[in-house]
């Protein structure tokens, strides 16, 4: 039976029209809004997550292009959109400091909580995990729908906060009290976070149960594609690290709405006025609770990306993944250890030598599994027959880019060197290398790789090349100078880009360079957007396994119908059996019973 599928998969299809879509009649009978809006099908939910997340990412990027204008040309009217920002934010098109702070905080929030994580976990995880483990859907389809809509509401709330009196949150995405407790905009941010946290808790329970319970026959733990492992560990991180932030958010809400003093110490004086709160609180408590989430959160940003990269790399080297076991063990180590390093964001708060030693050591230790993962992925290329497809280009670029971001984490992880670098653009450079040309590139790789599965059509290669090379170059011109600025002592979160300070004077010229690169990067996203929309209608039709890949999702029709598989899938072997000696083809899918068909 399985052999039948593999035969079908091998037949190149010119039009693909004759392929069954696998649509179960029951599905097509549902009204439009049940099928595409309040759908419980994991694929629809996954697409909803991906599109919403990408829209937010685009918004976060536009916000950042506006910010980079202010940094490149401080106090000059913003072109094009300056007039639409409103007098409260940008009179005469010139951005006010409070608006700058809102944009900064919201850029961070949008990118992390509304953009990248929803796409990587909600989008890719939802769409692919059930397919890769041979399941018909997630374990709890209703819950899945609920978590998307909670996310959607949280996102809307966050957006709405821009139009609320006083504007959006403006105390950084880190929301340190006491500033966050007294600053406008924060209440909506907190309520929005409660929505997002609830959404991601439901999602992570769903993912874990799905992976544990719904694996197809024959799919043992060590036969799972690495992507599934990555999502599995990620789900645990979300499950365990988010609740303390939810607790902290409730306490900050109490501080704002019920005038409690969880985070407010005694004796505060604001511009000569004593603050009338009871006091006795502890501002650092918030930081501990926040970073207890937010450090695992950064691995939530990177683990799914590593999963995507591992899939794309094995497929395009046409050989088994070298060191699969080491990858899995490292991912698990990262998972556990990421709960023990949070205070490396707090070295400058004066936490005492013992504590700071502890967190320096754990921070250095957690870099080791990351080194192992990178080493495995690089050595896995050895002996391959590398095809430079668009997904592969993005996946390959991910490696050195994540390398730069990861390596610059090392001086931040040592308290004495962090002393000079903390809160400078060096930190901004560090983490943007891991999240932008790192995670975002991996997401792009994933889009190009799985687009044929989702739509049955391929993306244009020419536009893809343009998108890749343009993005790679611009990202580097944008983020590399940030290290120079940071080492030279330029601080982040500066409304005027550090214009005030003498030591920044030689560094200011880079602000212009970075701005130019950011706007050019924006232009280079146009081919991607055009590609997505035009190819989904007019792209070349492809068969169900165009990359000649081995994992289970390629057994299903493209796009898979409701219930995914036409008959029960069975896994007969490990996930990456490429170039098996004496096999006729250079790939032997998990679902093919015979080693030699």
């Amino acid at each position, binding site marked *: 039976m399985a052999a039948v599928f593999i035969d079908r998969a091998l037949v190149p299809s010119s039009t693909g029209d004759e392929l069954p879509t696998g649509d179960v009649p029951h599905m097509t009978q549902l009204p439009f809004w049940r099928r595409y809006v309040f759908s419980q099908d994991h694929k629809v939910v996954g697409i909803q997550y991906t599109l919403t997340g990408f829209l937010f990412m685009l918004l976060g990027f536009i916000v950042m292009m506006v910010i980079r204008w202010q940094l490149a040309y401080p106090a000059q009217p913003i072109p094009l959109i300056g007039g639409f920002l409103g007098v409260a934010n940008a009179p005469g098109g010139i951005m006010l400091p409070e608006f700058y702070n809102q944009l900064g905080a919201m850029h961070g929030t949008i990118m992390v909580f509304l953009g990248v994580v929803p796409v990587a976990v909600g989008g890719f995880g939802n769409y692919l995990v059930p397919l890769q483990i041979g399941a018909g859907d997630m374990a709890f389809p209703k819950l899945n729908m609920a978590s998307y809509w909670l996310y959607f509401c949280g996102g809307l709330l966050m957006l709405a906060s821009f139009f609320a009196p006083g504007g959006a949150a403006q105390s950084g995405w880190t929301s340190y009290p006491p500033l966050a407790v007294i600053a406008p905009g924060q209440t909506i941010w907190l309520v929005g976070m409660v929505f997002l946290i609830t959404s991601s808790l439901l999602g992570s329970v769903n993912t874990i149960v799905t992976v544990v319970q719904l694996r197809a026959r024959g799919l043992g733990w060590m036969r799972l594609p690495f992507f599934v492992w990555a999502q599995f560990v990620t789900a645990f991180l979300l499950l365990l690290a988010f609740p303390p932030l939810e607790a902290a958010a409730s306490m900050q809400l109490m501080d704002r709405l019920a005038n409690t003093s969880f985070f407010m110490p005694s004796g505060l004086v604001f*511009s000569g006025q004593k603050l009338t709160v009871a006091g006795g609180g502890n501002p650092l408590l918030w930081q501990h609770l926040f970073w207890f989430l937010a450090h695992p959160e950064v691995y939530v940003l990177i683990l799914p990306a590593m999963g995507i990269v591992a899939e794309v790399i094995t497929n395009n080297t046409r050989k088994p993944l070298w060191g699969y076991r080491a990858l899995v063990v490292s991912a698990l180590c990262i998972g556990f250890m990421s709960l023990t390093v949070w205070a490396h964001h707090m070295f400058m708060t*004066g936490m005492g030598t013992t504590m700071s030693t502890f967190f320096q050591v754990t921070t250095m230790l957690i870099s080791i599994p990351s080194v192992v993962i990178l080493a495995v992925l690089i050595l896995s290329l050895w*002996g*391959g*027959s590398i095809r430079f497809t668009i997904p592969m280009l993005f996946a390959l670029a991910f490696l050195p880019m994540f390398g730069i971001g990861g390596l610059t984490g090392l001086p931040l992880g040592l308290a004495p060197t962090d002393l000079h670098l903390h*809160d400078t653009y060096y930190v901004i450079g560090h983490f943007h290398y891991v999240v932008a040309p790192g995670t975002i590139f991996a997401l792009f790789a994933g889009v190009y790789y799985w687009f044929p599965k989702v739509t049955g059509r391929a993306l244009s290669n020419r536009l893809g090349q343009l998108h890749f090379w343009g993005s790679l170059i611009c990202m580097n011109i944008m983020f590399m100078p940030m290290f120079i600025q940071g080492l030279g002592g330029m601080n982040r979160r500066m409304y005027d880009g550090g214009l005030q300070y003498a030591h920044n004077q030689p560094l200011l010229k880079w602000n212009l360079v970075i701005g130019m690169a950011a706007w050019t990067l924006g232009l280079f996203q146009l081919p991607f957007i055009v590609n997505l929309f035009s190819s989904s209608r007019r792209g070349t039709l492809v068969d169900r396994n165009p990359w000649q890949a081995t994992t289970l999702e390629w057994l299903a029709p493209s796009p898979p119908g409701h219930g995914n598989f036409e008959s029960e899938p069975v896994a007969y072997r490990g996930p990456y059996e490429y170039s098996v000696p004496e096999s006729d083809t250079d790939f032997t899918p998990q679902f093919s019973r015979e080693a030699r068909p």
Partner: protein
Amino acid sequence: MLELLGLPVQASQHASGLDQLLTEVHWLMAVMFIGWATLFLLIVVRFRSGAHPKADYVGTRGWGARLAVGIVAAEAFLIIFHAWPVWATRTPVAPSSGEATVVRVVAEQFAWNVHYPGADGRFGRTSIDLMGPSNPLGLDRTDPFAVDDVATINQLVLPQNRTVLIRLSSKDVIHSFWIPEMRVKHDVVPGLEATVWFTPTREGEYEIVCSQLCGLAHYRMRSAVSVRTVEQFEAFLAQEVRSQTR
């Protein structure tokens, strides 16, 4: 490497020690990056499908695998070795106030208030009830210890080659006290008093940079810092005492 990093000038005794460590870590990073990047490029070129049409099933085996494990182990060793804190340059034992010039710095949105104890070496009493526009520190001038105290706003004057101990506190939100050239940075958290100490070695004009987002004027929460010879420093204090207690 140090020149490459382009750090601000070193103006305190411990600055060169910190920079030394920063340089070492960047060497480690450079070696790791160049090593891996070279290997990466070599592999990508060597095993492109044009040059290597049929992939190997096993991948690297034997020496390759052993080498990889060796490299990773070496990196692990270096990284862990670096983890042993070189915090020594910032010894946790604060100098006693006898051997150091003690200054209080009180941060507020958006200014740095500086408080010198004066000739008696004791800070006068302060109270939040007395704080106001003309007395941002809330200094109680009726307290005998306060008589010779000196208060300045956004002007920190320090003696050269003498250890200074700065007691940091905040009136409202979290700020962060940073003098880049001194390689001194510490968060100023309301409700907690922190101390930092260092020995300025280089005469000249510097700045305190606020390094923690503290509100809309965070970007210009700046104070002048000037390091003067001990004689000039004493003269400055004497001058200020005269003008402030009049």
